[in-house]
């Protein structure tokens, strides 16, 4: 796949001129109309006034030609049971009730598996819609991680490590640090409905990286309060200049809070967001047919569908990293029903997202990542449950830079241990960064006397999966 000559946005060294960014960002907007009079004013004013400000979030040149420009992460929080969904284990299906090699009683999946696509990949009946796209998916089937508890594993998946004494930056923050973001009128890193548990803001935080790299949280009803400018742009800009002057004054003092640059940047971004973002977040502007395809509806049942559609709109508009979330996969009990409920909430929207990205030509530059913090055991926990499994589980990728219809690695015959193509969380991160054009060993930040990386001192890129 050719990625160097981008159709959407050239990756350049220096900060882009204001006008170029606006022009480029405009390409992806599709049906999004520009906001009303105030918004237009906002744009005219900023075009004149913000050439001078330094831009830490301006697009930066990657280490190597990027295969993907953006990531959408569909996070299945709580650990989806892989042997019931995407990791078909015929031996397990035949071994129901038998003793597992490592102890416990094996339980076959109650869901039937079928082969799909030209690759004949097995997917359970829980995901009929995603299964139709199975030839686009690139499975990482040999993942493993360190801690069989949700808080630590979720934090590790997002930040590379889960050591209480030192919080690390999240992967989205590392991406912004390394690449900047394409659309200066939007946050470069957006997380929709992040969990208050399992580390909370740590999972989209910047830790010791400058605070302007942290993720912006929004909810799934597309409302970010106070997005409408309440004074004419000329006057607001005047006021903003005064605020920023005060802020820079404080920044120059020896005791300045370390978040000050982030405060300054948040004002610039907020000012620009008043233009396009209200429309961008408003998924009711999508045609009925699109909303139907995603399965958009009000209420909690439609949450994931709304998130998927918002993710596409945001990603299309140039947001570097978008994370959306489906919680409730922690099926120590009620596995059967619970899987059905959660798969129902995620199958159609996920498939629609893949189809929509493809139809818009965005899948070539967008990397979709789908999965959990770990997997579940093939053995029984109680009458209808499975316990945590950190020694082998899959995630899948789709889109930019990865081989479609490909499986890398495998777990053993029961789905317990990763036996081939083993990838630790550090390896996953190294690979994701590589796809984005970043060398995980070169993407460092000096802090506390040493260079830190997303991948700590480990990480091997799984080049096998590159298209």
């Amino acid at each position, binding site marked *: 796949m050719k990625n160097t000559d981008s159709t959407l946005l050239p990756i350049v060294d220096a900060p882009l001129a204001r006008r170029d960014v606006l022009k480029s960002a405009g390409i992806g907007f599709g049906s999004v109309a520009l906001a009303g009079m105030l918004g237009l004013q906002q744009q005219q004013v900023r075009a004149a006034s913000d050439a001078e400000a330094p831009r830490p979030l301006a697009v930066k040149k990657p280490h190597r030609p990027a295969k993907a420009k953006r990531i959408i992460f569909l996070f299945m929080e709580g650990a989806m049971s892989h042997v019931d969904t995407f990791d078909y284990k015929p031996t397990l299906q035949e071994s129901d009730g038998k003793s597992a090699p490592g102890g416990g009683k094996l339980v076959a999946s109650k869901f039937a598996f079928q082969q799909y696509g030209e690759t004949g990949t097995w997917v359970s009946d829980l995901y009929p819609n995603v299964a139709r796209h199975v030839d686009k998916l690139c499975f990482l089937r040999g993942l493993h991680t360190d*801690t*069989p*508890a949700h*808080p*630590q594993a979720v934090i590790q998946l997002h930040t590379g490590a889960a050591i*209480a*004494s*030192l919080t690390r930056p999240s992967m989205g923050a590392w991406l912004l640090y390394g690449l900047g973001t394409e659309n200066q009128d939007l*946050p470069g890193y957006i997380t929709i409905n992040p969990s*208050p*548990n399992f580390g909370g803001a740590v999972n989209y*935080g910047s830790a*010791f990286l400058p*605070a*302007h790299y942290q993720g*912006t*949280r929004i909810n799934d009803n597309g409302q*970010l*309060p*106070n*997005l*409408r*400018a*309440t*004074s004419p742009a*000329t*006057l607001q800009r*005047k*006021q903003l200049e*005064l*605020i920023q002057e*005060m*802020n820079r004054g*404080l*920044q120059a*003092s*020896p*005791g*300045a*809070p370390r978040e000050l640059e*982030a*405060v*300054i940047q*948040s*004002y610039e*971004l*907020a*000012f620009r*967001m*008043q233009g396009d973002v209200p429309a961008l977040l408003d998924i009711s502007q999508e045609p009925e047919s699109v909303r139907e395809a995603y399965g958009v509806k009000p209420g*909690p049942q439609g949450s994931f569908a709304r998130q998927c559609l918002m993710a596409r709109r945001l990603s299309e508009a140039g947001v570097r990293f978008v994370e959306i979330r489906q919680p409730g996969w922690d099926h*120590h*009990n009620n596995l059967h*029903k619970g899987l059905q409920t959660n798969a129902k909430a995620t199958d159609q929207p996920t498939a629609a997202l893949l189809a929509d990205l493809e139809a818009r030509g965005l899948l070539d530059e967008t990397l979709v990542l789908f999965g959990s913090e770990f997997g579940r055991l093939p053995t029984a*926990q*109680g009458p209808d*449950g499975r*316990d945590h499994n950190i020694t082998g589980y899959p995630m899948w990728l789709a889109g930019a830079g990865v081989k479609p219809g490909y499986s890398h690695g495998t777990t053993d015959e029961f789905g317990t241990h990763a036996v081939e193509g083993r990838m630790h969380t550090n390896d996953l991160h190294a690979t994701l960064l590589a796809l984005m054009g970043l060398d995980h060993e070169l993407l460092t930040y000096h802090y*506390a*006397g040493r260079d830190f990386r997303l991948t700590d001192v480990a990480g091997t890129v799984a080049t096998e999966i590159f298209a």
Partner: protein
Amino acid sequence: MLQKLDLLESKMPAKLPRPETAGRGRSLPSESRDSSRKPGASIISRDIQRRFRRLGRTLLLAVGTALSVQGFAGAADEGDAAKLEFFERKVRPLLVANCFNCHSADNKAAGGLRVDDHKGLLQGGNRGPGVVPGDPEKSLLVQAIRQSDPKLRMPPEFKLEDEQIAILEQWVREGAVWPALELPEDLGKWDANYEALRREHWAWQPLQNSAIPGVSRPEWVWDELDAFVLARQEQHQLNPVADADRLSWLRRVTFDLTGLPPTPAEIDAFLADATSEAHATVVDRLLASPAYGERWGRHWLDVARYGESTGSARNLPYPHAWRYRDYVIDAFNRDKPYDEFLREQIAGDLLPHSSPEEFDEHQIATGFLALGVKDVNQRFKVRFEMDNIDEQIDTVTRSILGLTVSCARCHDHKFDPIPTTDYYALAGIFQSSDHCAGLRNKMGGGGLDYYDNNLLLSLASYPAPTTSTDAEELAAAQAALDKAKAEFERIRGTPEGAELAPNGRPKQQVARQKMNRAQAALNALSDPASLGAVAYGVREAKQISDTEVRLRGEAEKLGPVVPRGFLTAVDVPGTPAVNREQSGRLELAHWLSSAENPLTSRVMVNRVWRHLFDRGLVSTVDNFGVTGDTPSHPELLDHLSQRFIRDGWSIKRLIRAVVLSHTYRLGTSQSPAELAIDPGNRWLWRHAPRRLEAEEIRDAMLAATGTLSSARPESSPVQSLRVIEMRNNGQESQAILRTAKDSQHRSVYLPLVRTLVPPSLEVFDFAEQGMVTGSRDTTTVPGQALYLLNDPLVRKQALRYAEQLVAREDWDDTQRLREAYLRVLGRAATPAEVDRAGQFLDDYAAISANVLAESFAEAASAESPPESEVANVDTVPVKPANVPDPAANPDDVEQTEEVVVEEQILARDPRTAAWASFVQALFGSAEFRYLP
């Protein structure tokens, strides 16, 4: 292996005997006070656990096996094999095919009855026990399938074959045998790893006495605590930076202690005080101010996951929760000793009291246990109960002990030595207590269905109700309700119910309304909340008993009974054993608040430190377990913990010592050398600037403009809400948010309905109300900038202050600017700032004369209400609670979504507009938001 374990044990015999279980190892099921417990139920006593540990794995497995063979909860013994086979082959298929659609966990439990669960059948539903083992004639299930009673016919659509009926009759006659649950292999197993953790993990070891460390600069040490800090710095070749200037220190300590900025008068007084006691004078003044309790009480409310509604899928208000809020604030203001504060919250109802006021205070304190998130839409009572107990255990253990005990609900804790049996030892204590939040569970309820006024605590010290309730009147109201209920039940779901009444509505709906009206009339006469003052909390349950382990945390899957008790990992010498006649909360309260409990003091000292230094000595303030952080200064933590206990658990004395220390006095400046060694400031060589919390930002804006009321509101706007489901777009919700927006009270008094957090708080990382929050997140995101640029609350405050400044005709602009800087930022403006601001005002006024011409005209034509007319919205008329207009029942009336009308905030003229914009810019500046 055995020998090794024996050796390990013999080294530490003193730790093993657990006073609360002494002599209870021999207790037998027949001695249990719980009459519902089945013969054959087994008890894993703490003694047996000890024996497990002592004798090692071999015996353990033997006992474990015995447990599973013996079975429990009405399980069959080996002689029942044939009956079990009969059940599996004949009975269960019948139940599955004919009953499960309406009476099972996976579908619904019509009439409250479940037939997919043995206990469900025995307990039965609304009509009574479904099955009486051995007695088909008394078993409703048998009567229903015989269909001899026209009001009790099951299945409703047809009648079972005679031989099918006979099968079920036989099964009941023969004892209604049900297969035993399979016990997990590891239940009650004592993990050898746990022993090591008990011995080695720092957090639950006794407090250590450490000598005050020697330092090379003893003159730097003002308080002993400084020596611990300096010693670490010297060890790391760090030098503390220079002290903060007086103004910075004053601003810091004033916000830290009261959440408010210092007033100009306070600034003047401090700067003028040349005595050596000047700092102490300030600290004592702040600690004595009611604002202290409002700030530090809020810290505890974060930890107590305080909220004024259930949250969850059906959000119902807690109209009386504010009493707990006020209790907490008062406790901090009176410096109630922390151990006593804890005892009151866990077992206030069981403590002695010397006056009705004290009795009330103790009751209200137990609101701590009742105000959590609840899922009232839960179908099964037992699950509702066990979920609430889990919420209580989680809150109590994380807030007070910094331990995640609720991880052990389904299985032994994976990291900390907390076996699931410990969890159920605690669960028994809470199960023996009534959870009084005025709510019951009901699937798909509407209107007042969830409201249960039997689950309220009546307060004693309030004036007696004015309406003297006539017994006759009451009886009549009750009779009317019974009649209306009977009528509703009679036609509910019948063809007659579907017929239209004269008013054009279905008769069933009319009957329901009539029933609701009768309920309302009765409530007006009998509801304690209508008649007097009530609070939430707990009280002793009628049935006091130990409870069973719930296998994998499933409420109905009963394992062995565990005696009530505390955590085995935390050794607290001298704790009394659980009184068998009581819930055990009193003893739990003593166990938690004992000076010998090393976690309690450490956790609280660390919380205080975190609020004063923006980071705890243990950074994971709510997790002192194995996965938590280790203390940066363990000796200091123990030193302060011991002082805390020695000083009578006085939080004020602890805070006073810390804020008068040299460590707290340090400036915020950074030196490259120190930064290179310790960029995260773990060794406290500088004072880290702290971003104000959400409440402080709002309160400081209101304080600067002189709008902040220092009075405490009489209650909460939530008090006027009826206990019916709130919808986020519904009128009540919008009214609550409006009230919050217009309130002039301190933020701690804003209504805090879960999922309806006032935007002014939410935007700056307000505490997650669903769980213990000892350390709020601090994010820097564009939503905050948007709030400060556009939110009506901010703009209104800015305009209000601008109007005040402009109105001072005796001042020139320089004086106005000086005043604004002093009020908002707590310091004098520099000449350069005065010049810059003057330029801004001129420019802004000139531009706005053009671009805002229309809005000035609009403002002039609109009648601007004088300041005095701004209603104090917290005094909304209080309707009698839960005496609804039945027409407002959500079953009958769609709650309409309110159209939000945008508020116009318009300046009168260019000059005022410029001043408003300037004041708003001060609010928006980082300097306003960060403490030096």
